[in-house]
């Protein structure tokens, strides 16, 4: 199978940075708090007030980033809507649980339950945009977004679809944050804040003049196996337990990882990068966008816009980066889940 080229035509975010803009490249917001909620746009500018009232924050953010992407690309009905969300409408889940325990299983409102299923986001996007195409949701922790990208990639390679709206969406509430903090996942000393994620992007097999970059490779592996579509490796990277096919290591202008200041998370990134890409420039993004399950979506968003603008803000460099980027041609995104499952996505400048 000849590999089809795939382009990221548009990507928008609502996160702990200024929403729906690339202002973070010039004036990044920084926080001292350990839990930071999303900076919401004025939803009324995008959604009818009666619609907005019925929806939780996660849904509104997913919908608004989607509407902006559809508007920017003039694609009203993508061939597929593929969503990654680890914990879905957590707020509604927690509210329903609270009410169920407090009211001893009586007099429960269905509204929270209806919005609590993980596919609420993806199906709401389908309902709101009247898009009848392929629609699915991956809820696999920190790999949720990467698996959604992989799905779109596969179907594009198979020729089943040519456009796909792919998103990563997660919210956070105080009670669950406290639990995650106790378990050592977030809120640790020296760690980036725990944030909220809404990122929607349009993938297209057609190159368009507005495209941000090319989505060149994706590989997801567990332990010592790797999966990649490119069947003609001219260069194979290999360590004891990680392999990746890239045509030439110098084709990677920089490696962007999900380090977050928590040694339990960072060590495997640092080991991997030191072994596989010892002399490549190192970038990070979670100090800007925070940690949450689908934060990798914001890393991809940031990298895509840097490639489009041919500009890397200095604050994206990891403090232990061995050098700076001489010529920005590509960024390799590395994401990992509990030091067990790894994802590699290579973006190339157009």
């Amino acid at each position, binding site marked *: *199978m000849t590999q089809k080229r795939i382009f990221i035509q548009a990507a928008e975010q609502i996160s702990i940075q200024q929403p729906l803009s690339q202002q973070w490249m010039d004036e990044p917001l920084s926080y001292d708090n350990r839990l930071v909620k999303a900076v919401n746009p004025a939803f009324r500018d995008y959604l009818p007030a009666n619609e907005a009232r019925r929806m939780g924050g996660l849904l509104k953010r997913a919908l608004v980033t989607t509407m902006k992407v559809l508007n920017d690309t003039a694609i009203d009905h993508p061939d597929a809507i593929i969503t990654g969300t680890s914990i879905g409408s957590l707020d509604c889940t927690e509210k329903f649980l609270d009410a169920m325990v407090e009211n001893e299983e009586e007099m429960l409102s269905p509204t929270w339950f209806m919005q609590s299923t993980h596919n609420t986001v*993806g199906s709401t996007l*389908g309902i709101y945009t009247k898009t009848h195409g392929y629609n699915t949701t991956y809820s696999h922790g920190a790999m949720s977004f990467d698996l959604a990208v992989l799905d779109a990639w596969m179907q594009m390679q198979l020729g089943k679809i040519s456009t796909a709206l792919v998103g990563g969406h997660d919210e956070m509430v105080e009670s669950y944050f406290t639990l995650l903090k106790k378990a050592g996942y977030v809120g640790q000393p020296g760690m980036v804040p725990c944030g909220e994620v809404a990122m929607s992007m349009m993938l297209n097999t057609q190159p368009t003049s507005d495209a941000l970059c090319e989505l060149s490779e994706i590989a997801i592996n567990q332990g010592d196996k790797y999966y990649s579509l490119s069947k003609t490796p001219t260069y194979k990277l290999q360590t004891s337990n990680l392999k990746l096919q890239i045509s030439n290591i110098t084709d990677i202008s920089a490696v962007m990882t999900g380090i977050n200041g928590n040694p339990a998370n960072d060590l495997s990134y640092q080991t991997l990068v030191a072994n596989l890409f010892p002399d490549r420039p190192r970038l990070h993004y979670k100090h800007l966008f925070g940690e949450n399950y689908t934060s990798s979506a914001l890393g991809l968003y940031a990298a895509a816009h840097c490639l489009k603008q041919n500009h890397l803000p200095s604050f994206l460099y990891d403090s232990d980066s061995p050098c700076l980027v001489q010529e920005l041609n590509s960024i390799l995104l590395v994401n990992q889940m509990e030091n067990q499952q790894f994802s590699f996505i290579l973006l190339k400048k157009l």
Partner: protein
Amino acid sequence: MEPIYITGAGVVSAIGVGKAETLTSLIEGSSGIRAMKYLQSRHCDLPVGEVQLSNEEMMEMLRMPYDPFLTRTALIGRLALCEALEQSGLSGEALSAVPFISATTVGGMDRRELCYAQEKDCDCNHAHALIATHNCADSTKMIAGYFGQFAFLSTVSTACSSATNAIITGANMLRCGMADTVIVGGAESLTMFHLNGFNSLMILDHQQCRPFDRDRAGLNLGEGAAYLVMETEASLNKRDATPIGRLSGYGNACDAFHQTASSPEGTGAVLAMQEALAVAGLKPSDIQYVNAHGTGTPNNDESESYALKTVFADSLPPVSSTKSFTGHTTSASGSIEAVFCLLAIQHQFIPANLNWHTPMDNGIIPYTTASAGLASGNPITHVLSNAFGFGGNDSSIILSGN
């Protein structure tokens, strides 16, 4: 499309642990929907389709030490996966080349809801355990952990069509050449969360559910798991494995109508079925049996009837909803019913739609005669199975004989 072979199948539900018990129940027409026994809920008057084993009994069957943190979903999933792997002959090192794609929605909510009131005071170890039971990915990990290292893990969560969509993701992986073998399916246990959720929507029947009956009054919740081992022809030949059937077509579409209701015309259902037929290269008249989504809710059965009539017109084959046996096993239903379809093909019978008495207005008339062997000489070769989820995540698959 290029053939996708199924070389292993495992199933656990209210009508049995394993294919043999399941087959007997299906042929005898004995439903597993009973009074609540294991779930600790105030709504114990609601009939449910429970797996007839306690967590402790399942741990014994799995020959593992007692572990209070293992969720019921994970235990049911492990039992089903054991059977699928055993039939396929895959184990140990061979699994490291096999992606495992599992479906769930509430995952380990059964554990979390039991401890929810004490959460605020819990220590770090318990916090770990509670998080690990809330997250869908952890449910998949808990199931996989018993068997060794898989190539990678993935969790699909599209409510009641989750397992069918896991099958679809696995099929795309095989067709892309990303793997030679995949394991796909879903697992879901009964939880207070789910029971109360569906109860708040007022779509739970206080009797055994009556799919496609005029007087149907909702669904019964069930639990269970099923997994399929699917592989390419090359892998089949290389391993010298024996297929039990094929996945010959699949379709996924969005109804794009409402969060909890299907459109009156069943738009998403029609698109999903038509796509599955197109991918399989089959005509509606080539299908000998439809395993309907058929939840027993007024809305689903009306919408699905309309969709079936649209797709099949004059060539509608026998249709039944096996949710009258198992209850609605939500995220696991797609793979559980896929195993039922494989059994129907292998043993040449059509499972009955139980509890049906009166035709509904404009509804389909389901197949109600439970019997081994078919009266007509029309062999069952191709079977279509539907699974529709909240929000209109509609999917259909076609299973075929060899």
